[in-house]
């Protein structure tokens, strides 16, 4: 079992952490950095709940060994808005009551962020595609899609 020094950036802050070969990015984010916003679901890449942005793209943190994130820029839900100043996507999710149990919401919000940064004016189909890898077991998809549409139009207006 070898150890490595992992240097990477999380939510704009640089970290250097000792990690073991078998530790996943998800484990390091939650247990070593204390960023519990990223959730663990199926651990096999099916549910998408553990989604984070790596160099601006949505990835499943359960399918990446921590050391593979070296020199990368990670964004977790803790890096998107705050309780005092929520991100427009978070405001839209609140407006639509899009969160039920809330477990999938960090990944849904990051997927929305990834989508809107590349495509500020998505179609309904593109919205569905963007979240298609994430399972909401409360099945609250329609409100999530509405929130994503609202977020898109509000972010466009504020530009």
């Amino acid at each position, binding site marked *: 079992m*070898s150890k*490595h020094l992992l240097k990477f950036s999380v939510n704009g802050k640089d970290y250097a952490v000792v990690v073991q*070969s078998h530790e*996943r990015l998800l484990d390091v984010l939650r247990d070593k950095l204390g960023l519990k916003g990223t959730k663990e679901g199926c*651990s*096999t*890449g*099916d549910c*998408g709940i553990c*989604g984070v942005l790596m160099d601006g*793209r*949505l*990835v*499943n943190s*359960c*399918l*990446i*060994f921590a*050391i*593979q994130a*070296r*020199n990368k820029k990670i964004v977790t839900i803790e890096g998107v808005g705050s309780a005092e100043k929520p991100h427009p996507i978070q405001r839209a999710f609140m407006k639509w009551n899009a969160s039920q149990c809330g477990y999938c919401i960090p990944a849904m919000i990051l*997927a929305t962020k*990834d*989508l809107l940064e590349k495509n500020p004016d998505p179609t309904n189909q593109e919205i569905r*595609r*963007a*979240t*298609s*890898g*994430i399972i909401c077991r409360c099945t609250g998809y329609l409100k999530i899609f509405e929130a994503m549409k609202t977020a898109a139009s509000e972010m466009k207006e504020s530009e």
Partner: protein
Amino acid sequence: MFVPENVVDVLQYLDSHQARVHLIANGTDLINRIQRKQVTPKVLVDLTGLPELKYVKREAGMIKIGALTTVSELIASPVMDPRYDVFREVAMKFGGPSIINMATVGGNICSASSSEDLLPVLLVLDAEVHVRSIHGERTIRVEDFVKGKRITDLKPNEILVETSFRELEPRSTCGFEKVGMRNSLIIAFVNCAVYLRLTENKLCDEVRIAFNRVNGKIPQRARQTEKIMKGKKLNEQWFSDAVATLRNELKLTSDFRVSEEYRLEVACAIFKRTISRCADRLAGEKILV
């Protein structure tokens, strides 16, 4: 985990350590298999830090794809003009955005399981893979490279560096269909890729058909059906003869996902859908119902 700086590092390491070393790219397949204890690697060699294997380029009539190119990068590449929309068709059914952002073309080939969606497309494009060791490089057809379920021709001291195929000629096209439970991240019940080229007077000049998951082992071509289709005019007769031959040719098995009978119906249905889409695209009009 061995973290190499460049390809030469990897090749030197592999040449000196051969026992139970596994190569890992973005891990969408391998991490699952490690967790299920289907593989127990002693050492993993991380390939993700090798940007020199991330590219899509057009060179001397060939399309060349670096092994570490992710499916997202592949379909976003300007080299993949609308003639290569088949890769977009694959990507839409390959997995959700987070999976296609991670899964690599080389990984999909080397996993060599019956569920890989890129393999049938590479088969009908008659693609080759280029593998490299410290002693040199060799080129193998994808069809010969994938030898069985989870078995490839890759030697313990080699890595796959590139896959390449000839550019699509005029009057040729390629299509893909897949049926599974879910569009994002699902192992197909069956999938199908077709390459079709017409002659100047719109006869079928060349056709290649590949299925994955039909016999539960590796992707395979439907050569008898291809033979029946060649040299003929594209009409309803051509179409129904092809489907009838395919029905006899496909050797299917049941598994926990679907039964043999259902799989046959689905295979024929997606074959019809794919071939008629390709034919329509080439003819510029709806020619098959």
